[in-house]
């Protein structure tokens, strides 16, 4: 059952419009509607705020500003993952970035709330802010904190300068990546229903426990009083790891009015209030022998941060494990700006980092006149090059070889700008993928009921990742049940605590915990049966027991699970399983755990307009054991397409006068649409990583992005001979480098 391409068990509900997201509940009657009012300056303070006109507007129940908010907890910076920290809102008169909420209007209908919002009369004293990353790059500083409280910002091995200076072939280039945004299709939304002191919180969230902790510490109430409900999440991509303004504002309003209140951010607000990937400038230096072996690698990253709240994207961290080289250096530096604070956006770190490093590797391959696949194979490390520990289950070379074969890499044009099909300049590109495999404490319970069905429960979420489906498969496998006799219930804070969906760890955290829960439940059932004189299995040695087809068999004797349970546990029988923290798992000390892949892309570039079209793309991945072939492939192709967007389309443009993202909607912030995406496929190699967990599985949700954009960028170079290092690669950056138009 594990690994099979089972259709999503939540699929029929989703395609029928019956899956209910945070904003779509009426259990407590008709909620009021909150509408957020955002600051129209980038830096400064509110000097006067007059709510009288808005309050008089029809249907308005309440207007909340920083004058009205109750006392709020401050973020505890000692909590390593910020998603669990308090998130105070409307807490001060100063404005720290454009669009920051300055008021909430609550009305009987959405139309009334929206109409009243512009009637809130606000005067600001604006101040000069810093919004231009390139102009402020000289202000970069070295952060003194660890990334996520655990990863050093800087590392050095050997003597980089000496190694680089004496290398016969050198690449020293700077790449820039823009502001990018998660932009899940479901807006960030929250509906709060007050019940006495308790709050039922329907919120679009990736991590239930973090949402509860963050709300409780902000509101300064007992976490047990908060009941999170989030059975379906319309995408997160990092931006729903933590709750944002909509949640705290809905909670304040619901408590003040003692009525259900719901708040959704508008698509435009989402750009300023959630999920922005920092813009970066990355210097990559590669020094190599003439045979392609690297002697020195440096990856130095400078990125923006909000001046008041630091965020460090781990952009250079996977470079530490990617290729062998005796002399190495990685660094992260921050440029303080008056822009929204960066947040984790899908594949934080690897997405922009591998865009730069895997482009630089391509540049090195051309400098050496070597096949870029071969260059990577020559630099395969035996041990993790910085930590000195062995890799668990590293199959990068197999991914490269298998991908090259399937894609037909041997027919690539070895010279750039050498293949022409009519008006199209055609090019092939490739890049390697690597992403750390993470693990975090997670509990899952499984209960067998007297009717012979199993119920799996965890506060784990399914954000489109397939959690419902893979947990169904693991329970079916663990208890010998057909999948239609397993029901999975997720996304409620009453259920056993998980670390949610993020960091590509959700699937393996929760499936490993469930696998253990099933083990414990099997032991309970066998003990029950062998002690039960009425059981056909009475007194038999449980060592040879098999759980199949909804029953237990020992030798020739067998009994159905429902008989055992109904007779001995009429209310059902339950067991819990657990996954440990990385710090409690010695494999994380003794091995470097990653998943791997190789991307291959073919593009056509219009010789006259420089329009770039993706023609086909293939990724071959190694992720240990696959839990569901269908949903894993979907995750991987989704990630690859994010890579295409990063290479060719996505870019937030900042108004240098106010720090506003001027293209803050889905018409102007371009994301891939159907017409941009031709044939994209993902293949996963058979595997089993016994160091990762008992199931041998590793995360897939972010691996697809890692390196994908670089494969496309390298294909553009191969097609045109034009190397664009300022992402995204748009036609006006390519056009000046193209040969003159044909006559």
């Amino acid at each position, binding site marked *: 059952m594990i690994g099979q391409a089972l259709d999503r068990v939540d*699929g029929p509900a989703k395609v029928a419009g019956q899956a209910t997201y945070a904003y779509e509940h009426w259990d407590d009657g008709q909620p009021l509607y909150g509408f957020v009012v955002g600051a129209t300056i980038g830096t400064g303070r509110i000097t006067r705020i007059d709510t009288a006109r808005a309050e008089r507007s029809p249907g308005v129940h309440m207007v909340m500003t920083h004058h009205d908010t109750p006392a709020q907890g401050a973020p505890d910076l000692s909590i390593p993952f910020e998603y669990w920290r308090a998130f105070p809102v409307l807490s001060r008169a100063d404005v720290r970035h454009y669009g920051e909420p300055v008021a909430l209007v609550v009305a009987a209908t959405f139309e009334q709330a929206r109409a009243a919002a512009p009637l809130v009369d606000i005067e600001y004293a604006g101040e000069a802010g810093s919004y231009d990353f390139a102009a402020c790059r000289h202000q970069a500083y070295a952060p003194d904190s660890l990334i996520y409280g655990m990863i050093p910002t800087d590392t050095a091995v050997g003597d980089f300068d000496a190694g680089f200076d004496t290398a016969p072939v050198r690449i020293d280039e700077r790449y820039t990546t823009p502001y990018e945004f998660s932009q899940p299709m479901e*807006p960030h939304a929250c509906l709060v229903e007050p019940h006495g002191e308790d709050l039922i919180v329907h919120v679009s969230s990736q991590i239930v426990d973090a949402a509860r902790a963050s709300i409780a510490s902000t509101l300064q109430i007992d976490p047990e009083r908060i009941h999170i409900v989030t059975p379906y999440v*319309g995408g997160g991509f990092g931006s729903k790891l933590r709750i944002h303004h909509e949640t705290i504002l809905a909670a304040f309003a619901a408590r003040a009015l003692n009525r259900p209140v719901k708040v959704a951010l508008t698509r435009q607000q989402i750009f300023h209030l959630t999920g922005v990937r920092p813009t970066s400038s990355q210097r990559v230096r590669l020094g190599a022998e003439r045979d392609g072996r690297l002697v020195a690698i440096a990856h130095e990253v400078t990125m923006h941060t909000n001046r008041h709240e630091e965020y460090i994207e781990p952009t250079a961290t996977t470079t530490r494990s990617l290729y062998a080289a005796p002399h190495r250096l990685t660094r992260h530096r921050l440029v303080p700006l008056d822009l929204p604070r960066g947040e984790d956006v899908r594949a934080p770190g690897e997405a922009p980092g591998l865009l730069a490093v895997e482009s630089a590797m391509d540049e090195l391959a051309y400098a050496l006149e070597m096949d870029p696949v071969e260059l990577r194979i020559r630099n395969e490390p035996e041990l993790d090059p910085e930590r000195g520990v062995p890799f668990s289950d590293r199959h990068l070379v197999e991914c490269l070889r298998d991908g090259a074969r399937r894609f037909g890499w041997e027919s690539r044009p070895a010279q750039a700008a050498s293949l022409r099909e009519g008006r199209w300049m055609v090019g092939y590109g490739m890049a390697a993928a690597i992403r750390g495999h993470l693990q975090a404490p997670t509990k899952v319970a499984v209960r067998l009921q007297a009717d012979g069905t199993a119920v799996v429960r965890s506060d784990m979420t399914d954000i489109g990742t397939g959690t419902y489906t893979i947990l169904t498969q693991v329970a079916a496998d663990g208890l010998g049940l057909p999948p239609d006799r397993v029901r999975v219930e997720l996304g409620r804070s009453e259920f056993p605590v998980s670390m949610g969906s993020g960091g590509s760890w959700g699937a393996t955290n929760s499936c490993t915990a469930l696998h253990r829960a099933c083990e414990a439940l099997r032991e309970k059932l066998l003990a029950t049966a062998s002690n039960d004189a009425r059981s056909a299995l009475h007194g038999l040695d449980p060592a040879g027991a098999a759980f199949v087809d909804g029953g237990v068999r020992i030798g020739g004797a067998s009994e159905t699970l429902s008989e055992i349970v109904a007779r001995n546990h009429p209310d059902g029988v339950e067991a819990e399983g657990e996954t440990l923290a990385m710090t409690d798992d010695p494999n994380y000390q003794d091995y470097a755990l990653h998943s791997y892949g190789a991307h291959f892309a073919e593009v056509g570039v219009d010789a006259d307009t420089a329009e770039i079209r993706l023609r086909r793309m293939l990724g071959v991945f190694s992720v240990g054991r696959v839990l569901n072939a269908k949903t894993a492939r979907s995750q991987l*192709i989704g990630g690859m397409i994010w890579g295409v967007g990063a290479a060719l389309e996505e870019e937030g443009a900042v108004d240098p006068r106010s720090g506003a993202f001027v293209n803050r909607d889905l018409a102007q912030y371009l994301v891939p649409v159907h017409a941009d995406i031709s044939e994209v496929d993902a293949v996963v190699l058979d595997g089993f990583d016994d160091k990762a967990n008992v199931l041998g599985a590793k995360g897939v949700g972010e691996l697809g992005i890692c390196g994908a954009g670089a494969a496309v960028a390298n294909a553009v170079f191969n097609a045109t001979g034009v190397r664009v290092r300022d992402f995204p690669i748009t036609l006006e950056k390519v056009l000046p480098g193209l040969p003159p138009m044909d006559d």
Partner: protein
Amino acid sequence: MSEADAGTTWAASSGVAGGTSTAVEPRRDEALPVLAITLNVNGRERRLEVDTRTSLLDTLREHLRLSGTKKGCDHGQCGACTVLVNGRRIYSCLTLAVMHEDDEIVTIEGMGEPGDLHPVQAAFVECDGFQCGYCTPGQICSAVGMLAEMDAGWPSHATADVSSPPIALSDEEIRERMSGNICRCAAYPNIVAAIRVVSEGRPG
């Protein structure tokens, strides 16, 4: 049917200024642009009073509580709100409910339900044409509308020869015609596969 028949209910305006405290009694007595209308949704007559500013999308979601139709942007930029009006696909966020009294509106809830799915819905499940599911009702309504446009011989930007129908449903045609529906999970290749499964299973 005229608007007078529908019983225009412009309430009289009167007003006392509310206080500046944070919680005020709502004022329902000012000029509220409310109309009583009847909509035909999924074959059922639905009578309701709506603020004339209410989009068809918000009417479906918030008044009729047919929340299968999704709001992704409210600006005609994502396609999550796609429904069929008189058999044609439209963005329901870009039109007002009061404009659709004589129309037949079909939402995802009217397509099929678990156990009795529409062929396009079933193909989306089979081909994994979605992940988070939020764009999905819009993609499915759009696909149904798009297949009808193909049957009617409407050309698209991707049609090489617009002069000689029928137009073959190539992958390029599907991609071009579905580009008004964004999927941030990027299930695009699987959505195209699902539409192909349906079109190949249909009588030509």
